[in-house]
């Protein structure tokens, strides 16, 4: 299908954005205009099924009223179990000191994350426990002008581990599977994936900032199917929080974990060894990769999916190198 066919009738919002209101925009401009448009919201959506950011109620009340209301069960969650009130007032508030004072996170490229509509944030994963995902969520909530909530896709281990399961659901996250990814994207949510999974968080310190294999590219298929742009994101700093110098495989097997980390401080210093090292963090949201140019059915074409996965991976790796050069030192 030639791109020249797509000529917006009248000056569309997107065409104005690229500074062209003429009657016949050239093909590349028409394509860019189409990229700028947000994917259509699922027409069959039930309001409240998936909470989009503008549907979240804003309340001004004291802590005491808040606590009283919470204890009487007077609040709402969406169908994924996302509890925006608890997330904003408690979970993110607990992470904020870590973000601001401990890791001194600097976030760039927020303009690449749309203020509304679906988008898939794909980032590197590291640092033994997935602090990087929590920091990315806080970055998008605190620093993005639209204060967006990041809905992450996690491994099933997350949802079978006590407490983690409970917190993950309430913070808006869900299992990494096609139906959930597509349901969230179709509802216009900002979805986060860490396609390296445990290979990324559990890799030895010597492998730091080397991207691992990117799963099976399921996230790309979900983005293609919902025509959501992919935002390749690089996170620098998490690798040094818990430098993993060894892996106690036997202990891991007994505990049913994918790995059991040995760091310079853990388990030697006991609970003190669980304090992350105060590394300096940089997060960069890269230029979005549009997925709405691909023909219908591309999500089922493995070659398209592989190539797009590689493109995302390459972009994140390059971005990581650039950030590492920018950072004065690991703890600077």
């Amino acid at each position, binding site marked *: 299908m030639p791109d020249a066919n797509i000529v917006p009738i009248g000056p569309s919002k997107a065409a104005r954005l690229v500074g062209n209101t003429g009657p016949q925009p050239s093909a590349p401009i028409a394509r860019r205009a189409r990229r700028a448009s947000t994917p259509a919201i699922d027409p*069959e959506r*039930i309001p*409240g*099924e998936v909470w989009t950011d503008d549907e979240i109620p804003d309340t001004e009340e004291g802590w005491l009223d808040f606590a009283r209301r*919470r*204890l*009487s*069960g*007077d*609040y*709402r*969650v*969406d*169908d*994924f*179990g996302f*509890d925006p009130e608890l997330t904003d007032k408690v979970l993110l508030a607990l992470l904020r000191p870590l973000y601001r004072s401990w890791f001194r996170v600097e976030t760039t490229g927020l303009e690449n994350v749309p203020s509304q509509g679906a988008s898939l944030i794909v980032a590197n994963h590291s640092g033994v426990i997935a602090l990087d995902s929590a920091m990315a969520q806080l970055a998008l909530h605190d620093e993005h002008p639209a204060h967006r909530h990041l809905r992450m896709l996690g491994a*099933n*281990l*997350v*949802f*079978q*581990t*006590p*407490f*983690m*399961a*409970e917190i993950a*659901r*309430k913070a808006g996250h*869900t*299992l990494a*599977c096609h*139906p*959930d990814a597509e*349901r969230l994207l179709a509802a216009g949510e900002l979805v986060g994936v860490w396609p390296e999974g445990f290979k990324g968080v559990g890799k030895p310190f010597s492998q730091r900032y080397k991207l691992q294999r990117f799963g099976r590219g399921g996230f790309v298929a979900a983005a293609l199917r919902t025509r959501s742009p992919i935002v390749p994101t690089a996170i620098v700093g998490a690798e040094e929080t818990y430098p993993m110098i060894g892996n106690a495989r036997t202990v891991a097997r007994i505990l049913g974990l994918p790995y059991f980390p040995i760091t310079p401080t853990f388990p030697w210093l006991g609970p003190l060894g669980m304090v992350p090292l105060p590394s300096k963090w940089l997060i960069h949201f890269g230029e979005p990769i549009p997925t709405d140019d691909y023909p219908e059915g591309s999500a089922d074409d493995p070659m398209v999916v592989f190539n797009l996965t590689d493109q995302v991976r390459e972009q994140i790796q390059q971005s990581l190198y650039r950030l590492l050069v920018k950072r004065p030192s690991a703890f600077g």
Partner: protein
Amino acid sequence: MGRTVLVTGVSRYLGGRMAALLAADPDIGSVIGVDVVAPELTIPGIEFVRADIRNPVIAKVMGEAAVDTVVHMGVIATPRQAGGRSTMKEINVIGTMQLLAACQRTPGVRSLVVKSTAAVYGSGPKDPAKFTEDMEPKHAPSSGWAKDSVEVETYVRGFARRRPDVSVTTLRFANFIGPTVQTALTSYFTLPVVPTVLGFDPRLQFVHEDDGLEAIRAAVHSPHQGTFNIAGDGVIMLSQAIHRAGRPTIGVLGPLFPMVGRALSPRGLADFSQESVRHLTYGRALDTRAMRRVLEFEPEHTTEEAFVSFLAGAHREGRDVA
């Protein structure tokens, strides 16, 4: 001439109400209620036949009365209602097989509506946030009511293949709740102290008892071949539900949960079997688009409203819920 509907399981609460609801429906000629025991109260407008659906007598009843629609509500949820697990399994599975055999032999049967349960999807950490009807369970149920229901659905599918002229509708319901219905979950929420699995807060979904019965009626009125999830919109977290009920709660380590649960509910209907424990650990939610689009059924109550109406009903009855 109106239609003749046969309803199984009429001596239990929902079956009885369903039969009465259909009997009051002007579009339906006559309603025949079947169960092993007679209902405690006579159901107005229905003809009760005391017959065991585990017994071929049912075929004779159906032939003589020229039944054209069968509503199967005879699957029992807890062993206590049946008097033991082996009887329960027999009523559920063998009973369904006999009923289907009778339907197959009765040429006049035009439609079959089966009340099934969302428990057939199982519960576990690998579950998607919402189940659609075409999804296979990730953690297939291995015991109890849920497994019986899986087997029942299998036989129903077999019947649908053998009698393609019959419209077969399977309705997978979220847990029934409301001011009057009593289930394992309503007993659980009225325990003096409600135990929960430590570190887990499952999403629960309910269907209001009136909505559930209306859904069956909708399926009787305009038969649609296929399987449909039926649930009130939205979910409620277990902790939230317990807080709403104003009950004290205690978090119990996963492996000890069934034991503590049974100790807290020695004679109650509350169920701490394996499947039920998994449900109270991992939760479950249903996608109900097909219910709206194909069945064109819209429940009047959301999950939350259904739960609130249960609390109001329990309060009226003095069941000691705030």
